[in-house]
């Protein structure tokens, strides 16, 4: 209730189903221990996992911070940008002796490469002379930066190629598809580049320009080698074939009620694909899952009103047992099954979607013939003071979220943490030379 009052946007929504309230006491919510990481002094928008112990966060305060996920220790601060950092990219280590690196792209027309170990700035790239909106790793040696232009760099910071973006808007999404093609999204346009990854002279070449969305493209995700999906602000999700770049399906039609369109309440905020088959779409306040492998992109899972406000991002954690959705209503909600009806079957669950739904794909499809499966609300993680901007999954260890309240929160499974601490204390005490 409180939140509804605070969010006037949501107040008029009478038409949609009411948002579910979390069960009292949240017995199914394992994430009851939090580490509140405070270092940023502006909105934290980006999170990037470095390895299973560390991650980096960045945001509008022009800095990026490397954190240790176990104890929330602040490891290093990446200071150097003068405008907000818009994108983060991890360059994984390629040889034994070189460290993994973090690439940050910023609106200040700089790309900086940092050591992920020490936080030391290794390279500062300025040759592209345009602001950066997104970064994409092409292969181990080469990465691509998008913004006002598309530029191709190698690991050492050498500019390989650069193509100015003709569109008015900056490129903010990029994916690669098969046959070394790069798809970029700027506003409502998709532009396709050919990547010539010649060892000697890698080159970019613009090969196509597609315009099929009516509104700005908000999300772009590869599904499989043969197709990818785009989602736009107006709520339309399009499936594309990779081979000939034809749009094959429209997954989510704009609802009839035009009055709502202007507010883009069906904005496709995020698209996540699982198992190259299930496309998770965060649309407005709810999320939908389509089975791409079926004929028409069958809707298999639906939660129309998962949050009080727009879902900003979603992702799986605990290897699929829990779907976490983050929203502008300051909460992260956890979805899944409350209890496994058939424990034996639950044990055999291998794939993410099987763990999540407790059903195998055909069962899910069969179910979808009649009704759509709805996950149960397991818990509501409510600690942020503003919209949650980013989500990062550390499998069973923890979930990391960042938000507009300038903080990063590590959510931990407190039961597990208790055991971990027992182990840590035991280790301390029972160390060979521990007790004198």
């Amino acid at each position: 209730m409180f939140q509804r009052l605070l969010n006037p946007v949501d107040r008029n929504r009478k038409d949609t189903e009411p948002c579910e309230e979390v069960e009292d006491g949240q017995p199914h919510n394992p994430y009851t221990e939090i580490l509140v990481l405070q270092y940023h002094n502006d909105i934290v928008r980006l999170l990037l996992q470095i390895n299973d112990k560390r991650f980096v966060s960045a945001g509008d305060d022009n800095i990026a911070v490397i954190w240790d996920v176990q104890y929330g220790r602040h490891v290093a601060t990446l200071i150097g940008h003068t405008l907000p950092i818009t994108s983060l990219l991890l360059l994984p280590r390629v040889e034994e002796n070189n460290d993994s690196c973090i690439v940050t792209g910023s609106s200040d027309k700089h790309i900086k490469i940092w050591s992920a170990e020490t936080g030391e700035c290794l390279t500062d790239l300025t040759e592209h002379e345009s602001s950066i909106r997104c970064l994409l790793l092409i292969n181990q040696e080469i990465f691509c930066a998008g913004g006002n232009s598309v530029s191709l760099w190698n690991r050492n910071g050498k500019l390989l190629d650069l193509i100015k973006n003709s569109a008015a808007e900056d490129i903010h999404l990029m994916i690669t598809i098969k046959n070394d093609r790069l798809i970029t999204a700027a506003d409502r346009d998709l532009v396709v580049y050919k990547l010539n990854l010649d060892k000697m002279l890698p080159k970019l070449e613009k090969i196509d320009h597609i315009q099929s969305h009516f509104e700005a493209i908000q999300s772009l995700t590869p599904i499989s080698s043969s197709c990818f999906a785009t989602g736009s602000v107006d709520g339309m999700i399009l499936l594309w074939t990779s081979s000939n770049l034809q749009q094959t399906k429209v997954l989510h039609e704009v609802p009839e009620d035009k009055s709502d369109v202007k507010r883009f309440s069906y904005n496709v905020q995020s698209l996540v694909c699982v198992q190259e088959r299930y496309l998770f779409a965060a649309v407005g306040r709810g999320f939908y899952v389509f089975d791409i492998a079926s004929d028409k992109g069958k809707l298999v899972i639906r939660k129309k009103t998962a949050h009080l406000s727009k879902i900003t991002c979603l992702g799986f954690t605990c290897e699929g047992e829990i779907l976490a959705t983050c929203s502008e209503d300051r909460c992260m909600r956890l979805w899944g099954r409350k209890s496994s009806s058939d424990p034996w079957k639950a044990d055999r669950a291998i794939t993410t979607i099987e763990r999540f739904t407790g059903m195998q794909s055909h069962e899910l499809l069969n179910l979808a013939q009649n009704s759509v499966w709805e996950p149960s609300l397991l818990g509501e993680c409510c600690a942020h003071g503003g919209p949650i901007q980013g989500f990062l999954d550390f499998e069973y260890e923890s979930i990391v979220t960042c938000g507009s309240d300038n903080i990063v929160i590590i959510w931990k499974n407190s039961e597990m943490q208790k055991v971990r601490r027992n182990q840590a204390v035991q280790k301390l005490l029972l160390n060979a030379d521990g007790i004198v």
Partner: protein
Amino acid sequence: MFGEYAQIATYLQQTRDGAPQTAQECLPPYLCPTYSPPQLYNFGLEKKNNFEDFIMIAEFSELEGPKPVMTIPKEGGAHIDQNAFAVKILAVDFQTSSEGFSITEDAQVLISDTELGIHAFVHHLILYDNTARGFVRPYCITYITTEQRKLLHFYEDISLQFKKAARYLKYGNKIVFVGDLERHLKDLEHTKGYLLNQVSKMRLKDDLNENQVNEARKNAENEMYRTLQTIRQSSIEIKEIISILKPLLNDRRLEAKFRELEDKAFQQTTQAGEDKLSLQDNWFNDLSSIEECDLRSGSLNESKVSPLTLFKPRDYKPLLVETKKAKRFNAPLRGLHELCSWGAKEGLKKFRNIHNHFKKEAMVLDLERNESRMLRPRCTSLSHGHCVTGNFLSDVYMKNVPNCVTNEFEGWSMYSGHQWGSSASLESLDSFKSADDGSLLSLNTFNSLLAETEYYPDVENFNDINVDKNGPDTSGSPRVSGKSSLKSNLSMLSICKTSDLDFTDSQTIVEDDSEYLFSEKNLVEVNTKVESSTVSLSSHTFPKASQCSNIDISSIRETSDVSTHLDILLNVNSHQVITFKNIMSDKTNHIKCISIPLDIDDSSSIPSDISVNEMNSLESNNTQSAKSDKQFTEEQVTFRENFCKSEVPEIKGDGKSTLSTLLEEEDNSKHYVKPGLQFGPFSIASVEEISSVSLTPSSDSYQTPSDYGCSFLKLPSGIPANMSQLAQELNGLRNDYVSKFYVEEDDTARYRAESDTSSAFTEISLRDLFSYRDNASDHNKNHQLQTGKDISDGIIKGKQFYEDVDSPVPCASIWKPRCRLYTLGEWISNSSIGKPGSCILEVLSSYQNLHHIIYSLLSGRPVLIAASVRLEQEVIKLVRALTIFVPMTKRKRQNVLEWTSKPLSIVDLAKLKLVGICRPDKRSLDSFIPCAVKKTCSIVDLEKRVIIASPYQGFYISAMMSKRKLFKTDVQYLSYIHWWLMELAAKAFLFFHSFCLSSTGSILYSLSPRDQHDPYSTTEKTESTIMTKLGIRDCDCEIIQHFSELVKLAKIESKISHGTDSGSIVYPFNIQHKVCQTYRC
């Protein structure tokens, strides 16, 4: 030595002459006491050889024989013939060999001089001096005390510390000596060269005039040869010595230390630009204090060539050595500082520390030794408010945790370096008052024996979980012991039984109940005796007739930062409580809290004698120790006697007087009324067992400059020697009580019923009356009503009291033994305004349903107390009162915020656990408490008188709350709460060791959170098994869990933060998704 006692003497004068006179002047004759106040305190002053311990350094000078060199402190031992004593202690020759040069080991002996009444620990050591006979300078360093016990009990410690300190001296000396020898060798070489030169010159001359070779020249040449021979010989000798000594100079640590000292000294010199290496210099301040007996150390004034230099290369110009003449030994010998250089400086510093430590009363030392153990490692101690409720890894020393490695001296002094939050802010007056309050409490506490009974079953309970019981030495290891561990965790309880003041052996806790068994019959006898003695003694001068006399001596040092608080409580005869409070301050703001309860439970024996003796000893010792504390400007001691029945409270002066009432026993019509009088920083309190009506006359109405025999002294602080002996030597009464109560099932059944879950932290528990005699109750009641009225009316009632009390009937009512043991010092229960726990009773009585809030606090859920600005004071009061429920570890985190108008965020909640927040007028709660915060907190809305909290369903807090009406003062109730909190901490301790540190606690059954509900319940099963074993149920489990999590975190954190990685770690915040309910408050 008596000079320092001028203040006291003046005061004594007043007490003896002034005060009684005024009393007699003011009072109508019938009100004058029929006895004269006991002159307790001059006794000690006249006692011989009451002096502070000192350290004397003496030397067997080759010129003068044995002579004292210096004392620590400088004026120490002024009253004894140091020369004679030096002769006595140096009448030894412990140097082993006379052949060649050998290293002589130090020797340590104990010497007693019964005539002087002094005892000495003598550490003999040899310093080397190349100018001295045989290169040796026999020294001895002596610790001189009047307490033989101290030396015997702490022999190991003293010995070890002396060895350590002497090492500095010796090491410095060796470096100096080797340097000297090397220089001497150079001298010899130089002389040799010179002589050879002479010879060759002579030869040359001979060559020139060969014929003139005569006898004289030959003689000269022979002479020279002889000289050369001597030189060669001594060269060989010196080289040998050097070869022996050089390998011994291998202590890098000491050398580094000396080097550091030297660097600092010279750095200062250069910084100042001129000769700063003089004695006036700060750096050498402590040298200068020592140096006066060593005139030659004036050479320090020569800056650059300071003899203290050990490492600076000195340009040495070899000198010719006089070889012909026999060595003269009349040159003044070098002083200690010249001999040992920086070693002397460091070593003497050590000795000063040693002195500072050991000059304390043996009892105090004992306590410190025992109790300080409880605080190590510090990171795992858990505290509530000011009360340390437990240490989970007591005495587990960790090599790899730097935190745990403590400096030996640091470790010695209890709490030294242990900062106790706001301890430094114990304002002098306030703290005094409250301390006084506390001692009042000590008079009226109850449940003492009850408590015994209470935990008794529990001890057995503990035993189930493998605990060893009562082993005094179990305190040395991570304990899972019931009574004993808890006992030692908190405060030492030494119990004595003294029909004849013959105490049982200290080290054994008497378990054989037969000896001390109290049957009900015995009790009756005892009581009758008391009764009779009361009657008979009532006419005596000394108030020994009282069934209970509580003597409370408080000595409070008032300086800006009061930091040390010793609290010793003696319960003599179960009726007499002697409380010593000693609040001292020192620069370091360290707090010391000690409590010693002594129960002497034979009431039939001459109680008055006991108290007289006690008090005498107290006083004498006070005077002794005053000396040591002379640096404190203000010294105040309140000597308070509280008489239960026969005494009328005395009021002295026109200060504020408060009459505090005591608590009523739960089921009993008898009550104790304890009027306590305070004036300024002094107070006198007495306890009256009288009425069921609690008497609280206003202070004004009870201002009577009368003297009813309560003596009241201003004394310097100190610790009573006899008491210490008592404390040390007596043990076991508790057990006696226990056994007694085992026997007296009927009597105590009701108490047991109430207390079946309580455990062994009984030390702090309140003790109570063990039996009643009902025949007197009616009488008493009437009486009390009467007196109560009278008290408020004025003076007359004093007399009445007197008469009534003297009459056998009231005396017939059986006295309830009381002994209150303080947790870690009286100041813990300091409930003056602003201290944690102040106004707790008021708060609890004015708000309902606070147990839900307390539950939140104890289980780590933050509590917000919201009100508008106009209720700010109320909020602050509430916050302060509830602060005692916030568990804290060593971690210095401020987790209580009294008042803030800043909106809270989740970040704050990770730190703050109890916050008073300003609620804007006319705005809803939601508008200033963010949703995320609100969900994770319990909220008290004072404006609407509403509590939103997760409901508490459990035993402990209910138990804590249920008895609150029985308590009349905060202090009493606080200690009751502390007791329960310790109880909880004890359970948590057991849980921690039996589950968290066990293998089951560290198995992660499944990573999957869903599975954790099933397989993890395996863990929970174990968890719940242990909880069940511990008798913990429902919500209490969460409290226990929270406690152990806190300790774990503190432990891990201390490890991590000292790890190689930099960066602070974040304290995890547990969001408890709980169902909250709204209550009215």
